[in-house]
C-alpha cells in the first residue's frame, strides 16, 4: 500500500479583517476504505496550440465510481491564458496562468462517460502540468 498525502495551506493577511490561515491534509485512499491509492499516471506536461477541447482522461480507462484525484497546474505566466476544465459536457471552471486545482473524479461511466477535458483559451501555446492518482 502506498501512502500519498495532499496538503493545502490557504493564507491571507488582508482579505478579511482577521488573518486567514487554513490548513488541511488528506491521505489519499480508496473509495470507502483506508487503503492508500496505489496508481498514478505520474507528473505529466502537455502543450497545446489549438483552442480545441482535449480529453485529458477518458472515464472508460479508469474504474468507475472510485476515489480518483486529479492535479492540474496552468504553467503559463500571461494572466489571460487559461484552461477551461469540463467533465463530460459540464464546465467546472477555468484555471488561469499560475493556478492549480485538485479535483476528485469519479470517472463515472454509468450513463454518459464523465471524461475529463480541457479547453485552452486560445490557439496560442498553453502548457499544462497534470497528474492523476487513482485506484
Amino acid at each position, binding site marked *: 500500500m502506498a*501512502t500519498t498525502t495532499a496538503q493545502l495551506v490557504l493564507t491571507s493577511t488582508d482579505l478579511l479583517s482577521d488573518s486567514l490561515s487554513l490548513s488541511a491534509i488528506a491521505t489519499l485512499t480508496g473509495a470507502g476504505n483506508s487503503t492508500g491509492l496505489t496508481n498514478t499516471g505520474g507528473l505529466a506536461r502537455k502543450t497545446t496550440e489549438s483552442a480545441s477541447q482535449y480529453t485529458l482522461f477518458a472515464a472508460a480507462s479508469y474504474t468507475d465510481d472510485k476515489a480518483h484525484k486529479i492535479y492540474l497546474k496552468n504553467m503559463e505566466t500571461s494572466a489571460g491564458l487559461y484552461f477551461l476544465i469540463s467533465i463530460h459536457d459540464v464546465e467546472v471552471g477555468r484555471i*488561469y496562468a499560475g493556478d492549480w486545482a485538485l479535483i476528485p473524479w469519479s470517472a463515472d461511466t454509468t450513463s454518459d462517460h464523465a471524461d475529463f477535458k480541457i479547453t485552452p483559451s486560445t490557439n496560442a501555446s498553453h502548457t499544462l502540468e497534470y*497528474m492523476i492518482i487513482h485506484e
Partner: protein
Amino acid sequence: MATTAQLTLNSGDIAGDPVNVTKLMTLTKAGTTNDLDQSSGLNRVHLRSTTNKVLLAANAEGNDLAAKVYIINKSEDASLYVTVTINAQTIGKLYGGDFLFIPWSQTDTDADIEIAATNWTSSTGDIPVEYALFHEDTDFLTNA
C-alpha cells in the same frame, strides 16, 4: 490583498521515484493579476441528506469570472462520502478527510455546486462539511 493557496502532494512509495509536488498560487481575478477580494468565509454544515443540497448557488453575474472553491469532508469515517455535483454532473466524491480546491465558472444559474451524503443513513451520523468560496463579484451573495 493577496490570498495564497499552496498545495503539496507527497508520496515516497506510489511510484519508483518519490512524488513531491509543491505549488503556490495567488488567487487573482480572471485574466488579471489583481487579487480576489471577496470570500464567503469558512462555513460548516452537517450533511444528512442523500439527495443533492445546494452548497453554493451560481450567479449568472459570476459567469467566467474567477472563483475558487474549497470543500472538505470532515468525517473521520472513511466510508462516508460526499458526492459533489455541478449542473447535475457528478464531479467526484470526497471520502472522509478528502478535500478539493477547484475553479468554478458559474456558467449559468444551473451551475450550482451541490453535495449529497449519498450513503448516509440515520445510523451513520451527520457528515460535517466545511467549505469556502473566494471570488470577485461584489454582487455575489450566496448561501446566506
